[in-house]
């Protein structure tokens, strides 16, 4: 009996190890395709011709370092790791993140790779699927570090997974660039090896409130509804505090359990309180439900802001014209006026991305690519692949990128980067409306009553 069990157990463990550790066969479908591309690109930079993988019409700097790529030789490879949600509830966002990382890899490899003290290194990213589960994210981060021996880490998708994965990377002293976990709490642990390029959760909706307060008639009473998880609570509380700070009366401020499907009673209470703007901080399904119920209960607001949802295509597809006038905060829009030497401008990025993938990028893609860009800049500044030297270089980052300005504060947070506030207009088009420097349209205010649409 014991022997049989031992046999079965050993067999299972061996299979798991083979599957888990075996880099080549099983990992093939998910690891970066970028490695194949650059080698087959002779003299691309010299002739300036566009090649198979995305080549932005971008920076002149490309020509110089492109010479090395032209010869197709690198002095080595830097292996990066990223646990991503390729399946599970956040699989869409995971895919968006992966596309962002892959584009960065393509771009730099075609330009000669990362310059480490004069030597040119090719970049490869090893991916594992964390199934949108944070304990898997942690397990896989461990695997990437100890088994695959990655040099640095690119972040997973989502606050929960980033939280879990960064605990592992911190323990092993491996720098991780967080591209998709926005909760402040990730950075409140005194960690030294985590750096987040995105604006923190607290900034998501305060910009919308600014936009509203600049309209007339000004809103006076706000209602806040947050889902009960770290990220949503943070966004909701920040919005609520900011509203009070700006002199609004917050008549309703409650949180709801994560899987709540029906907010009718809460919304009826909001209505009874006389709120003229609604702020919802949750996730896509709550956003959909909230919108449907606001309409079906006939509650009219001057403005509605939702933290997550409006920027996803499914939101306007599902709601149709009901989705218009809703506002949200996004980390980046293609129209913004930022640029850098590696990617070019935000518009260049959008073009290059669309060329490679066939769709216009949104902020999930951009923030991922930005993470790669920032890591690259730090490695090049440090002139070394030593983890601690690169960590120090990351901590000292203060650069403009196509994604916005990146400067990490002492906690590793990109605390000064503003969010761009968008509004869905004219049939679900995402129009940046605030701040004015990034706006391409004006805020449509107030929201028309439901029965007059």
């Amino acid at each position, binding site marked *: 009996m014991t022997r049989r069990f031992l046999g079965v157990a050993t067999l299972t463990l061996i299979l798991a190890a083979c599957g888990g550790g075996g880099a080549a066969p099983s990992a093939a479908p998910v690891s970066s395709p970028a490695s194949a591309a650059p080698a087959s690109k002779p003299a691309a930079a010299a002739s300036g011709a566009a090649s198979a993988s995305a080549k932005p019409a971008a920076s002149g700097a490309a020509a110089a370092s492109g010479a090395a790529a032209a010869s197709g030789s690198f002095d080595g490879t830097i292996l990066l790791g990223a646990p991503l949600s390729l399946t*599970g509830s956040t699989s869409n966002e995971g895919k968006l993140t992966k596309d962002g990382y892959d584009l960065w890899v393509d771009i730099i490899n075609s330009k000669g790779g990362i310059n480490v003290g004069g030597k040119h290194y090719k970049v490869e990213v090893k991916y594992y699927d964390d199934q949108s589960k944070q304990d898997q994210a942690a397990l896989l981060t461990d695997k990437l570090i100890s088994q695959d021996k990655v040099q640095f880490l690119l972040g997973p998708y989502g606050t929960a997974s980033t939280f879990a994965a960064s605990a592992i990377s911190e323990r092993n002293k491996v720098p991780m660039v967080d591209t998709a976990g926005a909760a402040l709490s990730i950075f409140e642990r005194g960690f030294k090896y985590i750096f987040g390029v995105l604006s923190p959760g607290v900034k998501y909706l305060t910009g919308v409130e600014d936009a509203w307060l600049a309209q007339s008639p000004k809103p006076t009473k706000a209602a806040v509804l947050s889902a009960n998880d770290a990220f949503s609570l943070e966004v909701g509380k920040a919005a609520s505090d900011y509203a009070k700070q700006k002199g609004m009366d917050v008549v309703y401020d409650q949180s709801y*359990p994560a899987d709540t499907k029906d907010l*009718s*009673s*809460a919304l009826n209470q909001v209505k009874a309180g006389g709120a003229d703007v609604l702020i919802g901080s949750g996730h896509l399904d709550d956003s959909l439900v909230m919108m449907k119920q606001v309409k*079906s209960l*006939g509650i009219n607001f001057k403005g509605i802001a939702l933290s997550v949802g409006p920027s996803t295509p499914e939101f306007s597809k*599902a709601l149709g014209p009901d989705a218009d006038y809703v506002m949200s905060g996004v980390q980046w829009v293609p129209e913004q006026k930022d640029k850098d030497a590696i990617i070019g401008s935000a518009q260049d990025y959008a073009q290059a991305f669309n060329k490679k993938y066939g769709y216009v990028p949104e902020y999930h893609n951009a923030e991922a690519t930005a993470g790669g860009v920032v890591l690259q800049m730090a490695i090049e500044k440090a002139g070394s692949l030593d983890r601690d030297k690169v960590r120090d270089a990351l901590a000292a980052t203060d650069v403009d990128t196509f994604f916005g300005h990146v400067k990490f504060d002492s906690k590793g947070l990109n605390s000064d980067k503003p969010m761009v506030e968008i509004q869905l207009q004219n049939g679900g088009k995402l129009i940046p409306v605030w701040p004015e420097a990034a706006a391409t349209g004006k805020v449509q205010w107030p929201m028309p009553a*439901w*029965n007059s649409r």
Partner: protein
Amino acid sequence: MQILQFLIDGLLLGGVYAAVAVGFALVFGIMNVINLAHGALIMLGAYVTFWLWKLVGIDPFLSIPISMVCIFCLGWLIQRFLINYVIRAPMLITFLMTFGLELLIVDLALNFFSADNRSVTTPLSGAPIQFAGITLPVVHFITLGIALLLTGLLGLFLARTRTGNAIRATSMDLDAARLVGIKIGQVYALTFAIGGAAAGAAGSLIILNYSMNPGGGEFYTLIGFVVCVLGGLGSISGALVGGLIFGIVQSMSQAFIGPAFQNAIAFGLLVVILLLRPSGILGKATA
């Protein structure tokens, strides 16, 4: 007046819960099978409505019978070719099997439908009915009506038709039922299929009122389980009453205490009722 509003909100919510629980109650009550895949079937029903709405433009209310038929067939197949083979094993075994099915169905849905949240709207999704200071959302109101109708029809079917009686007979005394010539295998397949049809209808109603994604059904399995026991195991009307009460409790808590505690109160109430009246609100007093 406000209390009345919240009471109505609760009834409307309860209508959805009742629709969810009815199918679960049938399977649980007749065959003693805890169908962990119930939520997955609900999800599939929701998707049938969604795709018909999106691709062919069929009004979601009209697609309810279609989703019922689809899930009916699926349910029949599942029972006839899978569950029937382990039905006499202890309850936890069928539990395990439905668990495996749930994993399978949800993951396939995730792969084929993507993880996106889906919702549908109808021309009726617009202005609510207003009277006496009460707001009554139209779609939600119709949903309650449909849930009541389904429960009523099911009850009538079980009580008044021959097949219905056969189904009830198998739950009362299996051997006696066999002795009078009832083909248990077919009866069970039919029962599960009907439960599936109810799940399909519930799914369509859910995507009309709320939203759905591949993983969204799990929540409703839990609701089904809880409401059934609350209302009294093995009782269809119990599922209805349990659903309405659970909805009202959640709504009232949401309104007066805040959404944060609605589940704590609802589950706390469940435990209290079980301790005071273990057979549930409408259940028969056998342990």
